[in-house]
């Protein structure tokens, strides 16, 4: 990636290391975006008791970077990070719901800290606050009957939930999905993991039909667990295909194989990085390359470091591991005063 001074929207959205090319429709609609005068970007995340993942930072940095590039292209752009407090406790199996809801404010403060240290210019907001707004309630009232009358939207909604939760969601009229759609329909571009494509397809139809505007989804490459050899991915094809939920540390009960930035020590990071599978082939999972990219984006926001990828480093697994760890410490652990 080039330094953002020269980085074009097209270059950013077709970046082979960051963007999941198979599902992102944006690269082909850059011209359309360029015709907009203003844009609102959104990235939304839920969370669990394990705390914030390093992978969440990837989304904060990328959202900020995209906003920066759009602003440089003359499109007035704002970036919002929604902290999905209410949706984090929606699932029946979630324990200590009150405690988890309380954590939303800590998370908000922490994102503000990140925002301030890296000068990201993103605006974190709580979902509970947005739900309380009249505008949101109005959108939900308009979207709900439209959704209920559309078989196409319902079948897309079915794809947003796990099979074992489908009956339950159908009973309550896909409430979670509808709230999600009503929330993000207020924005123009949503950044998220590839798994969220079905929400965005629904939102796209809703925006076109009800609000006569376009809605785009930008998908980053899947998030993979650390500390596993290649056989783990071969034997877990679902994780290989879609990755873990980036912002949920306990996704697939793999919290011990993630960097949880408030708790994982530098030593533990090193151990996980050193025992991870690294491939040159970009079609294969590469969680270490992800750390390198996240830390590089962090360095870019901190000191204006170039976003160029040194292919000599990515070509050699050991160099990549070393570089990823060094950048993680220098650009994330030290500036955020984390557990060294």
């Amino acid at each position, binding site marked *: 990636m080039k330094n953002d001074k020269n980085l074009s929207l097209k270059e950013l959205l077709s970046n082979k290391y960051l963007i999941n090319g198979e599902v992102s429709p944006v690269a082909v609609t850059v011209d359309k975006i360029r015709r907009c005068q203003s844009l609102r970007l959104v990235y939304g995340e839920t969370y669990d008791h394990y705390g914030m993942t390093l992978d969440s930072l990837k989304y904060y940095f990328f959202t900020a970077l995209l906003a920066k590039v759009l602003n440089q292209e003359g499109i007035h752009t704002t970036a919002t990070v929604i902290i999905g407090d209410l949706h984090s406790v929606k699932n029946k199996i979630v324990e200590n719901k009150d405690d988890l809801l309380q954590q939303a404010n800590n998370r908000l403060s922490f994102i503000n800290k990140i925002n301030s240290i890296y000068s990201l210019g993103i605006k974190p907001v709580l979902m509970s606050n947005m739900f309380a707004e009249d505008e949101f309630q109005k959108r939900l009232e308009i979207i709900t009957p439209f959704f209920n009358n559309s078989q196409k939207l319902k079948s897309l909604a079915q794809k947003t939930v796990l099979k074992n939760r489908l009956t339950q969601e159908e009973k309550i009229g896909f409430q979670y999905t509808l709230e999600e759609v009503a929330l993000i329909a207020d924005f123009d571009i949503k950044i998220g993991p590839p798994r969220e494509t079905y929400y965005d397809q629904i939102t796209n139809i809703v925006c076109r039909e009800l609000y006569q505007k376009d809605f785009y989804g930008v998908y980053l490459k899947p998030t993979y667990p650390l500390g596993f*050899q*290649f*056989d783990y*991915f*071969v*034997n877990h094809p679902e994780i290989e295909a879609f990755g873990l939920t980036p912002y949920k540390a306990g996704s697939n009960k793999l919290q011990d194989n993630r960097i949880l930035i408030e708790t994982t020590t530098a030593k533990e990071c090193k151990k996980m990085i050193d025992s991870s*599978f*690294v*491939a*040159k*082939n970009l*079609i*294969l999972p590469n969680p270490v390359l992800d750390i390198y990219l996240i830390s590089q984006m962090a360095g870019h926001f901190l000191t204006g470091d170039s976003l160029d990828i040194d292919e000599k480093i990515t070509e050699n697994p050991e160099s990549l591991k070393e570089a990823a760890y060094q950048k993680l410490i220098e650009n994330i652990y030290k500036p955020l005063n984390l557990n060294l």
Partner: protein
Amino acid sequence: MKSEYIKLAKKEYRDKVKLGAKISNYYRDKIKELQLKDFSKIKAYLEAFLPKLNPIISRDIIFAHLDFEPFTTSIANKSPFCIVSGLNPSSPLHLGHKVLFDQLLYFQSLGADIYIPITNDESYLDGKVKSLAESRKIAYEEIIPSIIAFGFDPKKTKIYVMSDYPDVYNFAVNTSKYVTQQYVSSIFGDKAIDNSGKAFYRSAVQLAQILLPQLEEFGGPKPTLIPVGIDQHPYILLSRDVAKKMDLIPPSEVIFKFQSSLLDPFEKMSGSKPNTAIYLSDDAKTIEKKIQRAYTGSVSVLEVHQKLGGVPEACSVFSLLNFHHPDNEFVTDIFNRYKKGQISMKELKEITVKFIAEIVADHQKKRQQVKSIDGFLLKKPINSFLSYK
């Protein structure tokens, strides 16, 4: 007159291109038809994990699999796993067999323990030899020394000749109970079981060979990998069914492409058709004669070949290099230059004759150096399923 030749050569070229596509499509279609998994994803992972890929994998000679996934864990952890691959001793070994042994050797280097049943009983039942005694002679005097000459590790290789390891027949009685006659007929056809021996062999003995390493004597149930040609896939399905019924682990398979016949790249090299095969016992002159007569992917008019190029995908001569030459860069270079018409049929044959004659001579030399086969023979009694209190 010349233009007539050129016209014919162009048609010949088109026909060869079609044949090349037919060969490629055959394997691709088989993956779909038999609901197998393409090996390319595993290949990509192995390429990233291992310092160097064996040509068997890098050139897609192994092209499909069924349940190979657990073996990636063994490879990643450098822990042992198990392979069974039988051999019918009805003719001397040829280059088609070498493709199989190259795989076995490669998997052995990655940690596999190899079981090789020499199925002289099958040779006899199928009428490929006149007597069990003859098939034993071939097994001990030809086949086993030749296998050992490939360089297998005696500590990790267990070879047995069926006639001399009758314990397997006891185990076969055990496995036979789980297979109905109707099931066997539906898989192999009535012709393949037209006498009672064949019926017992196909429905039980072969299964016993595949499932043998999972017996208590060999450490109990374990993932077992069987490298097979596509025509042997039904055997694997049958063995998987029976394994489940016996509370054993269903065997997995990797499926490899056939070494093509010298006379027809769409057919496989066959030991019973000498003109289609190069035997590991052939001398240099015979090899040269066979390769000179082989079907190629080049048209008969040099001018047209230089203009349109060759068709390595439909070339029995190039296939010899592709399946056996160890140097990936060399083979890729030959492929590209031949395809562009920069290498003539004559040159390709010269290169191939030289290379094949060398590797066959080398094998023969190593074969001469094999003085004893004892260290490789499996003699352990198996009776865990017979003992009683």
